[in-house]
């Protein structure tokens, strides 16, 4: 019985993989309809990562568009050696980080006020059911990006440091800062 269940699951996975491979190959050949199907399948994942990185709905949607436009141009670089979703996450993280550098609000860039939102949130933090997503997007920008890339996406601090153009020590410090803020907001400040 167990064996037959495994076979069904394996067959489904194989079918999905084969279908995805066919769609990617069609899109690589210029088939826009196939690419639209890839978009439909992955837009939620790309947008989720972009939203967590940017902490802003409008920026995340713009970054998602940017990802899929560049992906169309660079799809030929994908060689099927790694999982498509893994490659797409890497592309999404890089493009979103790059996009944020260009699109960040003028005041934030000039006056570096990234901490203010977090401080304000501290005052508003409430007890009750913890919504981690809403806490993450309220983290200060650099702490949020490091936290998302390390804790959710599984990047090493060396990779994050290179991606965000910061020292490895800074990446670790920002991760610690993010965890401390989350700890406080989740009601563990007296631990």
């Amino acid at each position, binding site marked *: 019985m167990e064996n037959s269940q495994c076979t069904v699951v394996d067959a489904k996975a194989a079918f999905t993989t084969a279908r995805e491979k066919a769609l990617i190959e069609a899109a690589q050949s210029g088939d*826009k309809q196939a*690419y*639209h199907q890839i*978009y439909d399948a992955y*837009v*939620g*994942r790309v*947008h*989720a990562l972009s*939203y967590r990185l940017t902490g802003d*709905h*409008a*920026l*995340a*949607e*713009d970054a*998602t*568009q*940017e990802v*899929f*436009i*560049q*992906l*169309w*141009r*660079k799809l030929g*670089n994908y060689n099927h050696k790694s999982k498509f979703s893994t490659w797409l996450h890497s*592309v999404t993280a*890089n*493009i979103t980080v*790059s*996009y944020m550098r*260009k*699109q960040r*609000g*003028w*005041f934030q860039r*000039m006056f570096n006020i990234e901490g203010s939102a977090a401080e304000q949130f501290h005052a508003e933090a409430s007890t009750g059911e*913890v919504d*981690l*997503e809403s806490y993450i997007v309220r983290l200060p920008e650099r702490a949020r990006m490091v936290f998302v890339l390390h*804790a*959710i996406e599984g990047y090493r601090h060396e990779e994050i440091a290179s991606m965000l153009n910061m020292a490895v020590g800074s990446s670790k410090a920002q991760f610690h800062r993010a*965890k401390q803020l*989350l*700890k406080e907001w*989740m009601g*563990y400040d007296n*631990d």
Partner: protein
Amino acid sequence: MTNFDQELQQKLDALPRNKAPNRDLWRGIELGMEQPADEAVKPASRGGLYAIAASIALVACLSWFGFNRMPVTPSGQLTGTELVQALSQQHEQQKQSLLVQYTDTPALTENWQAQLTELDQAANAIKAALNEDPDNTALLRMLQNVYQQQIALIERVHAPKWQQI
């Protein structure tokens, strides 16, 4: 592992993998796909050259006014306030001209006007500061920088320069 670490890990594991955008992004993506990368880069490169030229002109202007003309002179030469007015007037004309030029061109992002407004607010804040300290060359540079960002924003959303992966 502390209680916090355990709870955090549980929450992380439970985070949804997907989050649908609030609007349809495909139309903008299709438009971007239709634009060849080479063609998209050219206008932006020209924009870059204009920006460099504008920066050089600004530095020359600021140096001239900063070192020679900033103090109010009895001979009626330009004061800092007059320079701000001239810069603002010139920028407004350039901005309006671009907006008219791109009236029928679809923008690839929907929040660009909000960004434009944010930059307007920044410019107003700097102009208010310049009102108090009209000869402050650092503030003048900041104002020019904001104006350049507005022009770049309008050009970018209508003729985007796609980044490289």
